[in-house]
């Protein structure tokens, strides 16, 4: 038996293949895939029943096609998975820009700003030299005052903050080193002019320096 290609004339001179000619691989493949026409099926079946080599080819083709299908299914499934997994990721990023999420994000930012405003003390430096410049301490915020005066003795000092009218607002201790005393002021809740005063520690209570500052609301 010999192999006959699809368009090749057979030994009798016409274009129709006979039962004695080996069908082309394409035809055998169609046979395996159950896609032969009636005429083709008759030729392939009749030939194949008496041709061991074509049966062998058919068996190999069956394995090849089954493996191809399996591999294609895997690849198609993987591609599908990629598409599906890419979709939620997109949705995940998009979900960040929804109104509720943005609202929560805004609220979070506001809370952070409030914490910063309320709990982190504002650093303010005051000089003992009097002048026209006024130093402002932010209202509603803790403040750390650095009171600078070259004549301040080193060590622990008594401190007071009084209002413009002379009433005591706060008193405590401050530690002085190298002409600078630091004191942590609580929140000042009323705007106006205030004075920070430093006294010697002990019973004599001698005024060492006075510093003027303004309390104003500012961010």
């Amino acid at each position, binding site marked *: 038996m010999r192999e006959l290609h699809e368009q090749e004339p057979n030994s009798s001179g016409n274009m129709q293949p006979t039962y004695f000619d080996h069908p082309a691989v394409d035809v055998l493949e169609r046979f395996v*895939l159950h896609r032969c026409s009636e005429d083709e099926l008759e030729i392939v079946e009749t030939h194949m*029943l008496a041709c*061991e080599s074509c049966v062998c080819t058919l068996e190999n083709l069956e394995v*090849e096609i089954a*493996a*191809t299908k*399996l591999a294609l299914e*895997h690849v198609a499934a993987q591609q599908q998975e990629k598409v599906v997994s890419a979709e939620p990721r997109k949705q995940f990023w998009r979900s960040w820009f929804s109104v509720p999420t943005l609202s929560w994000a805004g609220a979070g930012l506001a809370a952070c700003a409030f914490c910063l405003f309320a709990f982190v003390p504002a650093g303010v430096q005051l000089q003992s030299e009097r002048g026209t410049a006024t130093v402002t301490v932010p209202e509603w915020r803790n403040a750390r005052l650095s009171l600078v005066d070259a004549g301040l003795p080193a060590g622990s000092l008594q401190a007071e903050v009084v209002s413009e009218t002379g009433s005591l607002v706060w008193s405590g201790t401050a530690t002085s080193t190298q002409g600078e005393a630091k004191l942590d002021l609580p929140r000042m809740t009323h705007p106006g002019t205030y004075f920070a005063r430093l006294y010697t520690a002990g019973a004599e209570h001698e005024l060492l320096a006075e510093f003027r500052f303004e309390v104003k609301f500012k961010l």
Partner: protein
Amino acid sequence: MEQLYKLFSRGIRYYLCRQLGPQELEDKVHDTFLIVVNAIRRGDLREPERLMGFVRTVVRRQVAAYIEHAVHTRREQAELETGISVADRTQNPEQEAMVKQKAELMKSALGALSKRDRDILVRFYLKEQPQEQICREMSLTETQFRLLKSRAKAKFGEIGKKKLASSGLFSVLVRANS
């Protein structure tokens, strides 16, 4: 008789297995031969050159008879033994293992094919689209389709062989195929 058996046994076995499954295959092959031999002895085969067609007719009738018997049995004995006539269509364990092994290699080979080549294979083998539909939807002539498909398969086979060779499985598969 021996020559007849030698000539047709493998083809008949393959055909019956493909149509009816591997159950009682040897008995079916034997029954078919008996029918053919008896018919020849009785002189039912008037033109010896028609032997191949005659054998095909006998085999087809045998398949039809088995299916009819199975349908009848199922109808009659449905209550007692459902599934008695259900043929096992799966491949044998060796083939199964071979298919899986090849499929693993083909998976990686598929990744190396171009999108168009892969598309042709997917449409033809997986989606089982007819050639005409693939040609129409991919704007291909029949010749182009045949050429592209055979090229894709050849490329696919080439890549697969390389992978097989590198994985050391080639010799195993060659031995199994021979």
